[in-house]
């Protein structure tokens, strides 16, 4: 085999002795998991850089606010209103960014649950005896249901179990509409 040969072509040559549908299914689920992990690691690095840059902006804004507060009255007199307005706008936009950054954290958490589901399913798929027992499938589904912690995950799970098509089940709230329960505060 030439060193430059396309690996994806070589990988498709499965020997009949080694073939089993369970193993192939487990391998493909493992592939999905690995692709997801690789993409997540890449985006983690990018988001980390973004957060560091954002942290720098927060520091600059804070310094500007302190400088503005300490301006001599005669200098501040002519620009006070405009300066305060600009600083308030910056602070408001940073608040919006803080909320947006948190969605990445939530995404990471949800994808972590999907990864765990895939690896659980891969293990399950390797065992033909389990695959043929409805009660084992029920146990698997219950394990997965317990895994989903956010309201959105639970809704998608219930919709799929109720037979709703996956693209409809995954429908997200429209633009500007908050996720269910997000930001909810309850004091005991």
């Amino acid at each position: 085999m030439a060193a430059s040969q396309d690996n994806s072509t070589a990988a498709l040559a499965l020997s009949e002795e080694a073939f089993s549908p369970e193993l192939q299914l487990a391998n493909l689920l493992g592939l999905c998991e690995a692709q997801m992990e690789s993409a997540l690691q890449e985006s983690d690095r990018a988001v980390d850089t973004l957060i560091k840059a954002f942290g720098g902006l927060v520091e600059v804004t804070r310094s500007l606010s302190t400088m503005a507060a300490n301006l001599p009255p005669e200098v501040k007199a002519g620009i006070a209103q405009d300066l305060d307005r600009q600083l308030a706008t910056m602070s408001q936009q940073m608040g919006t960014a803080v909320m947006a950054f948190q969605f990445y954290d939530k995404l990471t958490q949800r994808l972590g649950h999907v990864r765990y589901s895939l690896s659980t399913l891969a293990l399950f798929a390797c065992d033909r005896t389990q695959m043929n027992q409805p009660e084992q499938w029920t146990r698997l589904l219950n394990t997965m249901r317990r895994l989903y912690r956010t309201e959105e995950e639970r809704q998608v799970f219930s919709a799929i179990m109720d037979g709703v098509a996956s693209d409809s089940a995954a429908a997200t709230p429209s633009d500007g509409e908050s996720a269910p329960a997000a930001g909810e505060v309850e004091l005991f």
Partner: protein
Amino acid sequence: MPGVILAVDDSASMRQMVRFTLESAGYKVVQAADGVEALEFAKQNPADLVLTDVNMPRMDGISLVRELRALDNYKFVPVLVLTTESGNDTKQRGKEAGATGWIVKPFNPEQLLATIARVL
């Protein structure tokens, strides 16, 4: 008057977001990556408020609340749970453990500061 807040979350980016928000209001923020780290801090140091996530390695947020309530100097310190979990069962477990309140992520910075001011 702003005080010391112990922010507990296994996500570094979440801890940063909490820190940016709280420091902008003048609070001093101490960070911990899980319940074990937070408890180690609490055994040696006071804090005016604890803000904790639920799902974390080594020790989750609900267990942390329970452990904090067993410490003399944290019996009455407000503990707010900040989590993506909104299920009533988990919330009830948090309440029983001694949490002061429950905030569902993503938090709105102004709302978080208003809630903290209310319980301090």
